[in-house]
């Protein structure tokens, strides 16, 4: 088992506010890791730092054994690190097929080509393939604005996968998706993940989903990892139940605010 992602003493401060502090994590190839925590606990900050969107205040990050601190999302994508977003980041006024075509062209490092059309037969086939796998083929020629939230989440994840990543970070893939759709969505995604044997780290609020899909869980609270280990062990933890899952005190509200 080779380690793929490792952080040491990773911290981020916004002025006097501590968003994340001293995060030490090691993830090995092929692991599927869940991240839980209340809003503002530092989950998205952690993902933003790992994918290069937010520079860490302190600490170091290694991907495939190489230090990657200071590299931006663009370089990290080329290293094989991809992510999806809590709020899907899509090209709303472009057709779905073009959202995928540009991702494919970027993945082939062909995005500066000015004379050949972006929609080559080969790219269209690849795009149709992923649409089929995600089950959103019917939106192929629609604008993204015409898609429901669940389909947008899938498209967001599909785009992340088109870069042929080795590791995928999913930021709340089921937020904003109806209860009925959640499991179908995760089934779809996880099937592709398994087929490609990707390493996945995903942030999730729904403990049912967490229990169903992951083997290992990290629990965040106030910017610190309070527990890291096998699912049952972490969810049974008293501190986790108080601060995160709310089993001991209150039920979580379903607001969808970002952590940044």
């Amino acid at each position, binding site marked *: 088992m080779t380690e793929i992602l490792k952080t040491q003493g990773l911290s981020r401060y916004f002025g006097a506010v501590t968003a994340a502090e001293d995060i030490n994590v090691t993830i090995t190839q092929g692991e599927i890791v869940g991240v839980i925590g209340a809003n503002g606990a530092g989950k998205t900050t952690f993902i933003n730092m790992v994918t290069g969107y937010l520079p860490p205040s302190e600490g170091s990050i290694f991907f495939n054994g190489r230090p990657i601190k200071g590299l931006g999302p*663009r370089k990290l994508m080329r290293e094989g690190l991809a992510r999806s977003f809590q709020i899907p980041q899509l090209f709303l006024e472009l057709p779905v097929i073009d959202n995928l075509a540009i991702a494919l062209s970027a993945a082939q490092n062909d995005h500066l080509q000015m004379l050949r059309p972006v929609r080559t037969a080969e790219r269209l086939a690849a795009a149709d393939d992923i649409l089929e796998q995600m089950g959103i083929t019917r939106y192929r020629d629609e604008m993204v604005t015409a898609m429901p939230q669940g389909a947008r989440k899938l498209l967001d994840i599909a785009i992340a996968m088109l870069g042929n990543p080795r590791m995928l970070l999913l930021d709340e893939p089921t937020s904003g998706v109806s209860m009925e759709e959640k499991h179908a969505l995760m089934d779809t995604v996880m099937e592709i993940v398994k087929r490609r044997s990707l390493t996945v780290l995903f942030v999730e609020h729904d403990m049912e989903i967490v229990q169903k899909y992951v083997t290992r869980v990290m629990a965040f609270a106030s910017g610190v990892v309070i527990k890291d280990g096998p699912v049952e062990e972490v969810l049974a933890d008293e501190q986790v139940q108080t601060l995160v899952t709310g089993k001991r005190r209150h039920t979580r509200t379903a607001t969808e605010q970002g952590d940044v």
Partner: protein
Amino acid sequence: MSLQKSEALMIAAAVAIGLAGLMSPNWLVFTTTLAVAKALVVLGVVMLMRSGLVSFGQGLFFCIGGYAVGMGGRFWGIQDALLLILLGVLASTALAMILGLLLTRYREIFFAMLTMAFSMILFGVLVKSHNLGSTDGFSVVQWSLLGWVPQSGMGVFWLALVLGLLVALFLNRFFQSSIGLACEAIRENEVRVEYMGISRRQVLYINYVLAAAIGAIGGSLTALAAGHVDPEMAYWTISGEFVFIALLGGTGHVAAAFIAAMLFALVRTYAVEFMPHTWQMILGIVLLLIILFLPKGIWSLFTRHRRTAP
């Protein structure tokens, strides 16, 4: 690479207009020439708009193209129109390559204001240049086209049509290409673009420099047609006019810029003639109506009943 349907149509339209020019009155040929020249600058604005940027300073390159023609003929003895245009394109490209390094960091209002500032600085420099005639500008000397000296406005008319067609064909491909789509992607969502492994600044830079080069062709053709250049070409209201025409046409298709430029020229000509005191008001009202009812420009009249075009 096979010819697309819209490309065949554009070639046919250019040939038809070129032939119609033989039977048209002189003023209309001239107006069409200027409209084609203007449309090229507008296409530069459209290119930037597709990437989400609005330039209030495209007059900068319009002016450089014009002055390159004027100065090349007057001071350096260059006679050939194509060489003069090339000179303008090179000068514009060189300047855009420098300014682009800075400008690609800016968006929205700041991009608009900075582009305007650079254009106004050129205006200021030219106004101060007594040798170049200050605000009066100077006239363009007699030029030739591959050894042929055109005796009427038809020479520059055909030249404008050919260059306009070439640029239109190129941009038609460009808009469908990877980098063309990357520009639109940047307009839609920069975060995602960066996560796709695309350098936003690299894409915007190339787009900006190309827009500048095309704008210079428009300026050069205007100078050849009008026979005069002056600093007003760099004044911000001229750049505002380009933005106006770009909105009028919309970013849907290259041909829209040409139709909009022609429409603008005719509306303006007739407004100036019939309502010499209130033509600005007419332009303002037209602009408001377009934004209200045709937010994607007049091109949406052509595509409204078709879903996504191939």
